[in-house]
């Protein structure tokens, strides 16, 4: 069949499928959900191989540790191999060799888009970690070549702030899942997820987007995937160097404010938001080192968000500029 090559966070990612139709389906899905560029490479750094649907993939669950087990996804780990099971579809992630082998059956394509996205996202993060690229559960935006990381739990205002700033002229890397890459020049953030996931509650604050939201695909019940790049030209960027770390909190205050915080408090807050599914000790040590390096190149703040975020977002934009 032949490999199709993407580039992900500076690495060549190969996609090979034994079923020709399925390769096109997966390509289309990946292009829709992730920030992947077309690439060329004879020997990709990471490789996916999908077998003919219906084929059985042998898995060895003896001695495997259950990492996660929900209705739509279970994750097992055995030595340096993860097994991701979603319905009757299986993906075996060989972390040591940068390879994924899987079978995607019909039930996979019937799942909500959000579950399909999570399935591949997890495998990407697992494969990227040994390549010194670490997942960060945060939104990243950029302005004047300065990257801003927005981290926090659900409901803290990350998406609202992100959408408000993008509508004010800022650029979006990714929401929720970005990659941190430790280079000699510093820590770079790379976009991973494409589009902006918004709940219908968040979208109520942006009536100018209601028409676009209605036409946007459903990720899951009550959540839409906004194609920001199509809505606002030149509103996305694939990578940036983060210089500001923000931990927002939506309040009933009138005016937003920044409160500087120390590295230890910021580190704790980042750990709370870091993907917890990876449990290899030596990789976590490196990941913590990357977070530590990130803190050395950024200023960290608690961002108390007030009603000015909606009434006069340019005020909040100016406030964020002052955080550099």
């Amino acid at each position, binding site marked *: 069949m032949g490999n199709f090559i993407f580039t992900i966070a500076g690495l060549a990612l190969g996609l090979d499928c034994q079923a020709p139709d399925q390769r096109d389906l997966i390509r289309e899905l990946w292009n829709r959900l992730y920030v992947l560029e077309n690439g060329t490479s004879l020997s990709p750094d990471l490789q996916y191989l999908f077998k003919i649907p219906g084929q059985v993939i042998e898995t060895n669950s003896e001695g495997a540790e259950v990492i996660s087990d929900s209705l739509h996804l279970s994750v097992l780990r055995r030595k340096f191999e993860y097994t991701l099971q979603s319905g009757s579809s299986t993906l075996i992630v060989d972390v040591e060799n940068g390879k994924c082998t899987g079978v995607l059956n019909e039930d996979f394509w019937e799942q909500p888009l959000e579950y399909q996205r999570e399935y591949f996202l997890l495998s990407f993060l697992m494969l990227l970690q040994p390549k010194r690229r670490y997942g960060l559960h945060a939104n990243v935006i950029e302005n004047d070549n300065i990257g801003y990381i927005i981290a926090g739990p659900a409901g803290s205002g990350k998406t609202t702030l992100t959408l408000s700033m993008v509508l004010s002229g800022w650029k979006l890397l990714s929401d929720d899942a970005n990659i941190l890459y430790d280079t000699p020049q510093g820590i770079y953030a790379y976009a991973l997820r494409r589009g902006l996931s918004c709940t219908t509650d968040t979208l109520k604050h942006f009536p100018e987007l209601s028409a676009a939201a209605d036409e946007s695909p459903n990720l899951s019940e009550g959540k839409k995937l906004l194609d920001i790049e199509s809505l606002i030209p030149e509103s996305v960027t694939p990578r940036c160097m983060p210089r500001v770390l923000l931990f927002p909190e939506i309040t009933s205050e009138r005016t937003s404010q920044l409160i500087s915080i120390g*590295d230890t408090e910021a580190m704790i807050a980042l750990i709370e938001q870091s993907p917890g599914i990876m449990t290899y000790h030596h990789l976590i040590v490196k990941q913590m080192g990357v977070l530590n390096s990130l803190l050395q190149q950024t200023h960290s703040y608690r961002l108390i968000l007030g009603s000015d975020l909606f009434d006069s977002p340019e005020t909040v934009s100016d406030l964020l500029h002052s955080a550099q």
Partner: protein
Amino acid sequence: MNRILRWNMLTTSTKVSPDANVVFTEMENGESVLLHLGTNEYFSLNETGTLIWKGISDDRNLGEIGKELENTFDVTEEQATQSVMRLVESLLAQNLVSVKSG
């Protein structure tokens, strides 16, 4: 002479070792963060705690760590020993370290 403090039999010659599941990250400000991969709990240590943890990781006994604390922070031997013992008791309670036998 070993000095025995409190009922839990920690002495100045006691050695403890970090749990294999604990990841230690030292910050630029001299503080540190401990992450227990088994429980996903995390703890922060101030500068004193960081120095104590590093002494534990270097396989020193509690008396040796107390001595270093004394020299570094200009405190009395009594204060240093109490700081070490208090923290080690907390670390034991959180399963972040265990007492070495022998």
